[in-house]
């Protein structure tokens, strides 16, 4: 093949350059003459270097891949080999990229048209309204008594609570999630505070809270307005599988 002269365009990346070489050489993507394309590719990289253009690692990785493909093609293959053509995965990558390059060309004229539609920003309307709900006065007394109830003097801390003072305590959110789910499954429905019953230290409380949020996000549990929790829509939801280790120094 004749050597190809070309302007030193700045190509997006190795695939862009290869597609260019393929079109300039008038060959098909599914039947690339690797030796020629490789040598032209390397010529291009040299030009880039001589023009002091940065050769990103993507280009070098592709160069290595082309060399590998060429060497595979040079190796003799047994007659009835069912090995895939070493050029196939490269050809597939190039074909897919080309699809989207062409799609981009289709979208271009469409984008020119749309930018002439101008709209307003939303009007800054006052959204803060005075509170409109209606509640019974007993709700206030109830919350107050709950709040005061929590002020019960705590028993003096057991020595075991101090054993973690100098070491990190590892509580896994996943474990708390399992605990909450187990509790919920046996009770069917429970209040938010029941999820925290038996939790004595802050680390576990935080882990439980995160577990509740996580379970809620994955739709394993459902939090209702009256502070009750129920199991989510998927009753046979698998136990949470991410490993999340909560470490509090």
């Amino acid at each position: 093949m004749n050597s190809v002269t070309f302007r030193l365009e700045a190509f997006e990346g190795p695939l862009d350059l290869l597609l260019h070489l393929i079109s300039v050489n008038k060959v098909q993507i599914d039947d690339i003459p690797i030796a020629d394309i490789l040598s032209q590719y390397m010529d291009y990289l040299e030009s880039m270097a001589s023009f002091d253009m940065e050769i990103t690692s993507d280009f070098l990785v592709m160069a290595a891949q082309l060399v590998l493909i060429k060497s595979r093609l040079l190796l003799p293959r047994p007659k009835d080999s069912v090995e895939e053509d070493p050029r196939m995965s490269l050809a597939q990558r190039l074909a897919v990229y080309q699809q989207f390059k062409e799609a981009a060309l289709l979208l271009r004229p469409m984008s020119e048209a749309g930018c002439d539609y101008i709209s307003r920003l939303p009007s800054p309307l006052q959204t803060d309204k005075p509170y409109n709900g209606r509640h019974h006065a007993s709700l206030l007394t109830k919350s107050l008594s709950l709040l005061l109830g929590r002020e019960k003097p705590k028993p003096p801390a057991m020595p075991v609570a101090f054993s973690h003072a100098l070491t990190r305590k590892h509580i896994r959110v996943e474990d708390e999630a399992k605990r909450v789910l187990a509790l919920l499954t046996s009770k069917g429905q429970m209040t938010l505070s029941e999820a925290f019953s038996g939790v004595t230290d802050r680390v576990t409380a935080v882990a439980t809270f995160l577990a509740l949020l996580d379970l809620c996000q994955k739709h394993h549990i459902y939090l209702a307005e009256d502070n009750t929790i129920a199991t989510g829509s998927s009753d046979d939801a698998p136990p949470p599988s991410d490993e999340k280790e909560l470490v509090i120094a």
Partner: protein
Amino acid sequence: MNVAELSAAAEAILFAAGDPLPLERLCMALSLQESELHSVLLHLKDQLEERNSGLCLLFMDNKAQLCTRPAYAEAIRLALETRKPPSLTQTALEVLSIVAYRQPVTKSFVEQIRGVDSGYTLSSLADKGLIEEAGRLEVPGRPILYKTTDLFLRTFGISSLEELPPLPPDTVGQLPLMPTEESAG
């Protein structure tokens, strides 16, 4: 309210809303069924045309928006001293097509197709409001997923993704679909 009043009400609501407004909100505000709203909005659209209004009604996804007519864009830019936004680069369009046709996609998926880093282009497109985050892929690393926005629909003059031109054929093999479990890197 009769149709004329309803369409005037819709016009007022859409003006105040500015951004595309979900049709169901209009239904709720005007106490209409979906099909009734449809006729009201068509009436509004026709009215705006008949009286040669500088405004027009656009539909995107399940939302509606009041916009200026493209014919007057230049006059508006002169009056408000704003410039036409620079057209999208080839790179931006390539990345945008990948997102548009394969959404939701991760940055990694885009880079796999293009063979180059695309993070900058993705954030630039997000800044322009053409793409947005659509949750995360539930695999290790939980990478961000991207999808197109209503502004994308409006910018390309279509009212839904179905109106995108068909993707040019893959000349070689199978089209890679967005994998549910991505290989690292």
